[in-house]
């Protein structure tokens, strides 16, 4: 799960000397919210977002009677350089998707430019791209049944569950395990490509594992 596999390779960028008006038009025209800013030597020098643009027109917008034209004039006469974020959080070509989601979360940003070792922008990965990758990994929307099993938190527990599933010749389409509120236990979420889960659940219970009944969660 590498960033290079999920990033968008066609990146819309802008020069520092361009106006905020151009920046806004570029974002609208491409239905995006961030533009990496590329300097003279082709390297990444900053990033400008639609929020930066809104903030630039804020003083004008607050004046009663101000027109859209006056706001646009401000945008035309302000350069990207003036409002862009210079300290860009970026990913590298060898970063993983895990790196990307931690960066997006910890730095509270919506898009991560991906740069090569020359500092040139090779792609961009957004919060939405990251969510998509994990939606697919979780198998959400795939034709399947979902099981929630609670197991003791030690090696071998998962192997036991998986071999039971294998004995029914059923395909596992996703598997996730997290900690459980009770210590020394783990929760396993499995999606299997079968409608016929009853015999599977029975066998897992008979093997001594606890299957969480959806009715338990109902508030």
């Amino acid at each position: 799960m590498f960033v290079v596999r999920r990033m968008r390779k066609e990146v819309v960028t802008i020069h520092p000397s361009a106006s905020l008006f151009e920046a806004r038009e570029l974002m609208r025209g491409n239905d995006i919210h961030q533009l990496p800013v590329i300097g003279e030597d082709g390297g990444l020098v900053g990033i400008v977002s639609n929020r930066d643009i809104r903030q630039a027109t804020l003083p004008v917008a607050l004046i009663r009677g101000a027109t859209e034209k006056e706001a646009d004039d401000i945008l035309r006469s302000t350069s990207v350089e003036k409002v862009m974020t210079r300290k860009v959080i970026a990913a590298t070509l060898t970063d993983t998707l895990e790196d990307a989601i931690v960066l997006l979360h910890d730095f509270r940003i919506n898009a991560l430019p991906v740069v090569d070792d020359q500092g040139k922008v090779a792609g961009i990965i957004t919060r939405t791209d990251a969510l998509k990758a994990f939606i697919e990994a979780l198998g959400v929307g795939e034709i399947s049944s979902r099981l929630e099993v609670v197991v003791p938190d030690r090696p071998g527990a998962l192997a036991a569950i998986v071999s039971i599933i294998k004995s029914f010749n059923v395909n596992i389409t996703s598997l996730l395990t997290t900690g459980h509120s009770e210590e020394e236990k783990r929760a396993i979420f499995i999606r299997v490509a079968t409608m016929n889960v009853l015999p599977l659940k029975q066998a897992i219970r008979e093997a001594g594992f606890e299957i969480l009944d959806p009715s338990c969660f109902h508030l």
Partner: protein
Amino acid sequence: MNRVAYVYHPDYLLHAPSLEYSDDHAELPSRLAAITEHLAAAGLSERMVSVIPGYPDMSDILRVHSREYVQRLEAACRRGDTVLDAEDTYLCRDSYRIALLSAGGAIAGARAVASGSVRRAFCAVRPPGHHADRDSGKGFCLLNNVAVAARYLQAKHGISRVFIIDWDVHHGNGTQAIFLEDPSVFFFSIHEHPSFLYPGTGRRWETGKGAGEGTTLNSPMSPGAGDLEYRMAFEEMLPAAVELFRPEIFLISAGFDAHRDDPLADIHITAEGYRFMTRYVVGLADRYCGGRIVSVLEGGYELSALGASVETHVQELLGT
């Protein structure tokens, strides 16, 4: 009292799993045996017009399914495969033929209603159909009986707008996919929430695509939901949809596995709940399209619950 057709063929009992699967499987011939026994014992079979279906034309099937899939299904049965595409759907040598006959059953019911010889029809068919889409079978389904009936009505009986209500506890992913971009067929499904039950689709924001935007409606229900929650969902969601769409006929994908005794799901409908649901659709049909309803069996796996639920369903179709 309304004339109601009862569509059934004894060969539906021939689609059965091989010995290696029969212990673990729920979709069995005994389901239909339970239904026919129950309806006879309740004196309901004799009040209906018996219709024995024939085989459909291949053109009826190809209006919904790809030739490639149909050929693949036929070849798998001929070869003696015991499962379809190595998934959960079993096959025996007769399954292809019986699947055609099952679709033929839905067509026979549709024909009887559209021609006016009966007002409604209940088609006790198997294998079920609503998980099958254009190119594949799955979830115990081989051919999409209700979709085939819908397209048949449009092609052969001059019907333009068909309203499908799928109340099987599993989302009708196959039917939804087939009509997703089609504004002439409205697909409404009420089912256990996809996060908890197969097939894992049917979220509330799935409302159609392209030209079909607005003619798909999903009502995912939380585990533990029962008669009251289903009643509220029907009353909240159906009237506006039906009023806007103005259907010329209703098709019901009538699964009875939302019953509280059914082991496959976590919904707690009772036979009285099915009575309400049927009566509600009858009311809509009477108001918008001369009462025309074609009901086609889908799931329902606990035999006495299935029998009791089909009984209330048929009682309401007959009316008093």
